[in-house]
């Protein structure tokens, strides 16, 4: 299943690009992120607690950035194990295009669930994945816009 979306950001692509590699920004953008620690330049270890309706699961996993074309494109991927609940994984090809003084961030994402979550949740997998992808990029945009506001008032 493929998910797509785009968000307008007020900062230029270079700023957005740096934010994609900023653990503090990622931690605030990833829905339900409890911990996020950088493990290398392009990789992070994360704990994420997701709650959607009657399902709540804690995932431990990695977030990685790859296939980088700074500052215009990269692939953001994540994979997490939810123990007996199963696993979740997803990857988004993110592209940044300048628009005026800002950036349009577009993504094409794929997501998959495995194990019990897939066996019991397929009716809503697509809706859930779309919601989470959108939520991540919306929050990413919010965090960035907020950071900029703070920066200008300082």
């Amino acid at each position, binding site marked *: *299943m493929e998910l797509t979306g785009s968000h307008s950001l007020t900062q230029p692509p270079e700023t957005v690009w740096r934010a994609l590699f900023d653990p503090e920004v990622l931690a605030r953008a990833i829905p339900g992120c409890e911990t996020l620690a950088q493990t290398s330049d392009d990789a992070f270890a994360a704990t994420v607690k997701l709650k959607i*309706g*009657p*399902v709540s699961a804690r995932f431990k996993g990695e977030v990685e950035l790859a296939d980088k074309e700074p500052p215009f494109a990269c692939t953001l991927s994540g994979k997490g194990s939810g123990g007996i*609940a199963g696993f979740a994984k997803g990857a988004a090809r993110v592209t940044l295009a300048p628009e005026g003084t800002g950036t349009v961030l577009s993504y094409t994402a794929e997501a998959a669930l495995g194990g*019990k979550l897939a066996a019991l949740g397929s*009716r809503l997998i697509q*809706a*859930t994945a779309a919601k989470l992808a959108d939520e991540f990029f919306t929050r990413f945009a919010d965090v960035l816009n907020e950071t900029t506001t703070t920066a200008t008032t300082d």
Partner: protein
Amino acid sequence: MKAPPFAYRLAEDLPQALDLYARSAGDAVYLAGGHSIVPSLSLRLQAPALLIDISRIAALAGVSLGPEGLRIGATTPHAVLLEDPLVATHAPLLAEAARHVAHPAIRNRATFGGNLVLADPASEFPAVVRALRAELEVEGPEGARQIAAEDFFLDLYTTALQPGEILRAVLIPPPAPGQLVAFAELARRQGDFAMVGAAVRLVPKAGVIGTADIVFHSVGLTPMRAVAAEAALIGQALDAATIAAACAAVAQDLQPGDDPVLPAATRLHLAGVLLGRLLRRVQGEWA
């Protein structure tokens, strides 16, 4: 398929329930009929530290009629909606929908409020309360408030309830003069999650449709109001051309997703078919 361990407390009244929640560090879930929570616990899809049983709180129970309309307590079981004469008279749409909710034994214990609060997009009651323009009475740490059904269902399994808030009752306004309602769903088996379902409320005004409420379920992340279809009806006589226009407009209103057994385009087609059938049914009752 056995639940993980949790603590359980029976709340005697609303203040106690709210207090138990306040002291739970947010890791508590309210329990009434338990028909969504218990299976999800048994499947180990969630693991709250505490269940707060609100099923015996008198303030959440009962069906009564007042000047503002029909007031249905949140812990009213579905079976009561099917059988209660007040519901049959003042909210027949709800009684009609209740027939489609799961199976007889489920309806004996699953609660109206629990169903609304879960906000399963395939559930019938959220669509019905939205079509009836009901108001939801909520009690929470910050006090009581009332939320229009229109504003209650925000997203997939997400409502306007804040953490710790309890749905107390649902207020269904008195029917408008001449109001016509219909509910139906297309399901593969009796009691299944519908492929598509809808609640319709029309109020005639001077020979044409004055007000139209059309809310679908099982076609999106929330109960979906079909705004374009409603617009196609308002101000029109309920004739074949109007019905056709409303059905065609559904494509503007709904963007269902694919699921493993029903492609989005097929679901959208079914939504149009169902709306046509509902409107023709109402047409038959049109004075």
